């Protein structure tokens, strides 16, 4: 049984935006009309604070995007609660979206290709009453473009999406979110569709917005290296369950959940000095994430876990908290077998 334990708070002020013990179950129908329930997210909690970046890391189907969309109130929660500045969040609408904005993964489809940047950004400013006259709109659009480093802004203001590259489009999308003047940004894999050489600039831009303007950011990604680069705190999700979280260096350098370890070991890393791909003579078949219409009982990672034991099949473990506020949901820690995790990995890591 998972408890709705609050995320370790560094500050006393309430989180700008928080999901408290939220779950999401979708009902789907197959071709024959049979109903099935997809258990996309189970008892997840995340808290976003002013000026801090939390990364939500997981593979596709881990529920990270669903969690973000619950935070954006695109999907209502099945259970649990979304809290805005310490209070139950108002229903989705202008009031809510004035605080919380989402940046989509694919900038090519998140902007209307038929309109100029001036219209795309200007409409938002008008809708939210930040600008009324044509001159005000122009002035503020230019300043938004400058804020997202689209310079010279005068050159970009009359461009249409198809005249821009992916990186430039994503900046426009970020500018559109900023035009609302939100306090929280949710980034749903904001760089994964971009060219490699421009990803870092977008990450740096997001980092700057958090540092200088005090935005709270949720960064959703499958790329744990970029999460380490950008964020303060990491949460790892697997098949709808949050398996581990805490300060980034603690989680990435000494993971306390076997899945986090697998994820880190699987990420390409040119600095890897231990067992590289070339020396791996026998790739063990590690299986694949489960089907979420019929997920395994207990910890959903147990069919792939080298440490699986009876308890793992029975129930999802409670949270174990470590020094630095790192925490994990793994029976190894409940059974005092934490050391095994480290021992096994010492062979694989430098």
């Amino acid at each position, binding site marked *: 049984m998972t408890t709705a334990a609050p995320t370790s708070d560094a500050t006393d002020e309430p989180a700008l935006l928080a999901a408290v013990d939220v779950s999401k179950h979708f009902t789907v129908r197959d071709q024959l009309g049979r109903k099935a329930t997809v258990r996309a997210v189970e008892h997840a909690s995340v808290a976003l604070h002013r000026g801090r970046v939390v990364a939500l890391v997981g593979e596709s189907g881990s529920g990270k995007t669903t969690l973000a969309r619950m935070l954006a109130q695109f999907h209502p929660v099945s259970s649990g609660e979304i809290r805005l500045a310490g209070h139950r969040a108002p229903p989705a609408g202008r009031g809510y979206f004035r605080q919380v*904005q989402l940046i989509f993964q694919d900038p090519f489809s998140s902007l209307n290709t038929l309109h100029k940047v001036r219209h795309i950004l200007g409409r*938002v400013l008008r*809708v*939210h009453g930040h600008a009324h006259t044509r001159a005000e709109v122009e002035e503020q659009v230019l300043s938004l473009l400058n804020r997202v480093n689209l310079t010279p802004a005068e050159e970009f203001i009359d461009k249409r999406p198809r005249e821009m590259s992916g990186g430039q489009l994503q900046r426009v999308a970020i500018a559109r*979110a900023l035009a609302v003047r939100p306090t929280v940004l949710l980034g749903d894999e904001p760089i994964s569709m971009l060219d490699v050489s421009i990803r870092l600039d977008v990450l740096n831009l997001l980092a700057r917005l958090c540092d200088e303007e005090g935005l709270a950011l949720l960064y959703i990604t499958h790329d744990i290296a970029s999460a380490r680069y950008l964020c303060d705190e990491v949460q790892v999700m697997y098949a709808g369950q949050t398996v581990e979280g805490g300060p980034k260096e603690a989680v990435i350098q000494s993971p306390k959940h076997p899945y986090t370890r697998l994820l880190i070991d699987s990420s390409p890393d040119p600095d890897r000095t231990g067992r590289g791909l070339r020396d791996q003579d026998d790739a063990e078949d590690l299986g694949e994430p489960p089907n979420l219409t019929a997920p395994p009982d207990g910890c959903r990672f147990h069919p792939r876990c080298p440490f699986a034991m009876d308890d793992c099949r029975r129930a999802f473990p409670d949270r174990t908290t470590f020094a630095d506020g790192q925490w994990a949901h793994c029976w190894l820690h409940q059974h005092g077998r934490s050391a095994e995790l480290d021992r096994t990995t010492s062979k694989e890591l430098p």
Partner: protein
Amino acid sequence: MSQFLTNGKVRIGLAVFGAFLLIALIGSWLVSSVLGTDPHRIDYDALGAAPGGEHLLGTTTSGQDVLAQLITGCRGSVAVGLLSGVLAVGVAALVGVTGGFIGGRTDQMLTAVTNIFATLPSFPLMLIVAGYMANVGPVAIALLIGLFEWPVCARYLRAQTLSLRGRDFVQALRMVGESRWRMVLVEIMPHLTGILSSLFLRAVVTGVFTEAGLRFLGIGGGDSVTWGTMIAFAQQQEGVVRGMWWWFAPPGLFIALLGTATALVNFGLDEIGNPVLRHSSRAAVRRATAHMAARRDRTNTVEVAS
């Protein structure tokens, strides 16, 4: 848009369309001022005359000038086509886009209505209704055609809107608080202009066809002249039996030409929307061959020079 107008098929199709539209517009002036006649005037000296002489396209059995009728008929036919097209696409846009965009129960209801209309055997029903109303004018016929033509268009539009609604940009606009109506009119509708114009052209031609069909079967009255009435009279007054081809062939040909024009425009639109079609076209092969030849010349020159 620029792509749209550079496509050869689209250009030809639109040119034909434009020509018919022009004739429809200035037709009555052409007939009265240039030909100096009117489609109903009877020339008792030339009953059922073959083309030539005073009557370029001959006359009908009752001595009416075929050319004058053809030109006036263009106006009648195109007017019926346009009116039915506007009605069909208008209703379709209202039903299809609304259903597709709003979704949920509204959509289910609208889809049900669309399906009911779509499954009705439209032509026989039109016959019955028109026959029952007896002596209906062209406007009523156009409305009737439009009424049975919209469901097909509505389905297309609903599907398109549905896919647009799922796109991220619509979600994003919702997040920034854009109002629903602006979302439909300013953000979504512009994406549908291509399909709307293609549907409209098709509806116009279907209108012309259906009107001709109804007239041929003797539905509708009044003294309006359309290509349909020309063929119908040619048949009723034994023009067909007597081999007076100049009477019924030109309107038939014009109807076919209008159909071909629409088909060309729609082929062109397909090519623009589907690059595979475009690049497998003969033009692409021709371009490629020419490019290779030019390149070979260039390389040879360089080699000689160096």
